[in-house]
């Protein structure tokens, strides 16, 4: 079977699967099988976090540039697109009414995604060109500073709600969020595997050697920063149009830290690691919410209230026990292959 047929089939299967998942999240479910609102919301947040983690992984994990301001670019994408949909969305949806309800909102969402990505990429360019001259800790601090300034500036723009928050029409459904998650993962995977990706990895391994081999390090660093910011912007657009409400408190630097934690837990410089990290960081606090209360004499210990404490403890312990993250720079596939090979060596016999 030629490869494009294979990709086509995979594409169709994935979209069908997403469609079923999307249907499962509605009130009636997919032929009666469905997930509830809470689980659906978690799935969406996992997907958005995967976009954020893989895009930050391009900057931090593959290019080795220590950025801790990803939430700032997410905020730029979210607010820019939300301003667009709030101003022109309604009119556009009405003029596109011939496409049906879902069709017209989808078109508007796609335009919003393009706007969010472009504005976030521009912001990435503005922030990246001056800051990427710095290295290590200094770069980290400057990106953190820029992200905070972006947040405070947005907080002071009354047109996007300021301190009271900003209502956004809920055009994004799980189908679109899923499709964009897959697009992000595929695009970043392909960038990493391309010659651009080789150049980025060479900068991570040794910037001076890369420069000596003729890699234009500044250009590649800015490129990776801009691409990463654009995808963070897309995540912001999807978050805005799913959550239906924006507040700058959602984009504080703690949000950037969360994304860093995802890629560090999963393993810096590993695609599957970033995805795994995003899933773990989103689910863990929710799983810990189910912890039982323990009755000791007259006092009840609510372990569920300790969930964030436990989360922080797990984070510290992971760093002490496994500093390279769960996967290191390897991918899940590498482990599976090794496992299979080990199987073959024994000839299937124990």
């Amino acid at each position, binding site marked *: 079977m030629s490869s494009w047929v294979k990709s086509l089939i995979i594409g169709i299967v994935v979209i069908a699967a997403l469609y079923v998942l999307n249907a499962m999240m509605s009130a009636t479910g997919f032929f009666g099988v469905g997930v509830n609102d809470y689980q659906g919301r978690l799935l969406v947040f996992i997907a958005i976090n995967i976009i954020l983690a893989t895009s930050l992984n391009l900057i931090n994990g593959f290019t080795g540039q220590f950025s801790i301001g990803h939430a700032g670019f997410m905020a730029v994408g979210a607010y820019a697109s939300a301003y667009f949909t709030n101003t022109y969305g309604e009119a556009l949806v009405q003029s596109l009414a011939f496409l049906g309800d879902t069709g017209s909102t989808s078109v508007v969402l796609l335009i919003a995604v393009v706007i969010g990505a472009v504005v976030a990429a521009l912001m990435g360019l503005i922030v990246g060109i001056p800051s990427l001259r*710095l290295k290590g800790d200094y770069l980290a601090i400057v990106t953190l500073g820029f992200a905070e300034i972006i947040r405070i500036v947005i907080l002071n723009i009354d047109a996007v709600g300021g301190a009271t928050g900003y209502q956004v029409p809920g055009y994004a459904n799980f189908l679109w969020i899923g499709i964009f998650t897959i697009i992000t993962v595929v695009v970043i995977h392909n960038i990493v595997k391309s010659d651009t990706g080789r150049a980025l990895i060479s900068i991570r391994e040794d910037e001076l050697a890369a420069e000596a081999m003729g890699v234009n390090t500044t250009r590649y660093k800015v490129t990776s920063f801009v691409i990463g910011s654009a995808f963070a912007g897309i995540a912001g657009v999807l978050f805005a149009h799913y959550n239906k409400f924006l507040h700058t408190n959602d984009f504080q630097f703690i949000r950037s830290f969360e994304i860093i934690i995802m890629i560090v837990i999963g393993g810096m410089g590993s695609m599957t690691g970033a995805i795994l990290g995003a899933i773990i960081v989103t689910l863990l606090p929710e799983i810990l919410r189910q912890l039982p209360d323990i009755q000791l004499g007259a006092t009840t210990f609510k372990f569920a209230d300790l969930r964030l404490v436990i989360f922080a403890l797990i*984070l510290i312990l992971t*760093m002490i026990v496994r500093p390279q993250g769960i996967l290191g720079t390897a991918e899940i596939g590498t482990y599976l292959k090794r496992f299979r090979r080990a199987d073959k060596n024994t000839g299937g016999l124990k």
Partner: protein
Amino acid sequence: MDTFVQQLINGLTIGSIYALIALGYTMVYGILRLINFAHGDIYMVGAYAGFMLAVALGFSGEPSAFGFAVTLIGAMAIAAAIGMAIERFAYRPVRKYSKMTTLITAIGMSLLIEYLFIFFFSPTPRSFPQLLPVGSVTLFGNATISTSQILIFVVSLLLMGLLQWIIFRTKMGKAMRAVSFNITSAKLMGINTDFVIAFTFALGSALAAAGGVLTAQYNPKIDPLMGIMTGLKAFVAAVLGGIGNIPGAVLGGLLIGAAETLVVGYGGYIGIPSTYRDAVAFAILIVVLLVRPAGLLGSNIQEKV
């Protein structure tokens, strides 16, 4: 003119607090090249330790200098112990790993302290008791300086002097300077580097706790998340002055504090609304790092290949 002097006094008050916290950041960075994100939370721990002590020992009823001194020193001691414990159990095991790992450990520690305090003390703010008699002195014109502001200036000056003495006049200080210069060589010369690092954390944490108690005298509302923004700005102050440089941290702290209040007071005239208060520190930081990355007083160290 009067309001300008008034703004400057207020700014320098906040600036002294930033300076006290910045000293801890700068000392730890100087020795370990670690941005200790949990340091801002130690400042909060200090304020809470002071609060608990003052309430438990009954100093909240009648203000007295003795009560204040006991609270301040007690809070500093508790914070120093906690700082050493954090270093021993969280930072020492990851010291040999990459910068990213140590940084994430520091972030994890910061989250741990915040969530533990939210769990035990609830997120609602508490009111710190006034430990010294309240009053104010009118300077020339209409500018006034309150007793708590005088207290902040005097105590932070004393503590900074003490720190200067420890670092430049004692054997321990000499060891600290040696470790920050080159940790491997220091070890070869027979310095117990682990102990020196623990001592540095204790010193930094004690200063941050003093900052916490002093702030609480000026602005009595304390809550488990109060250390986040203040800590971040103090860190900016440390970078502004030149991270790893002790006079630089003090200068940076005072500058950030003054700039912040001046923007709140006069920013309106040049089109910067006072709500940009929190952005000022970061804007200064970015300009400084892009123009003079080593900070105002720092020396530019070329990274080795």
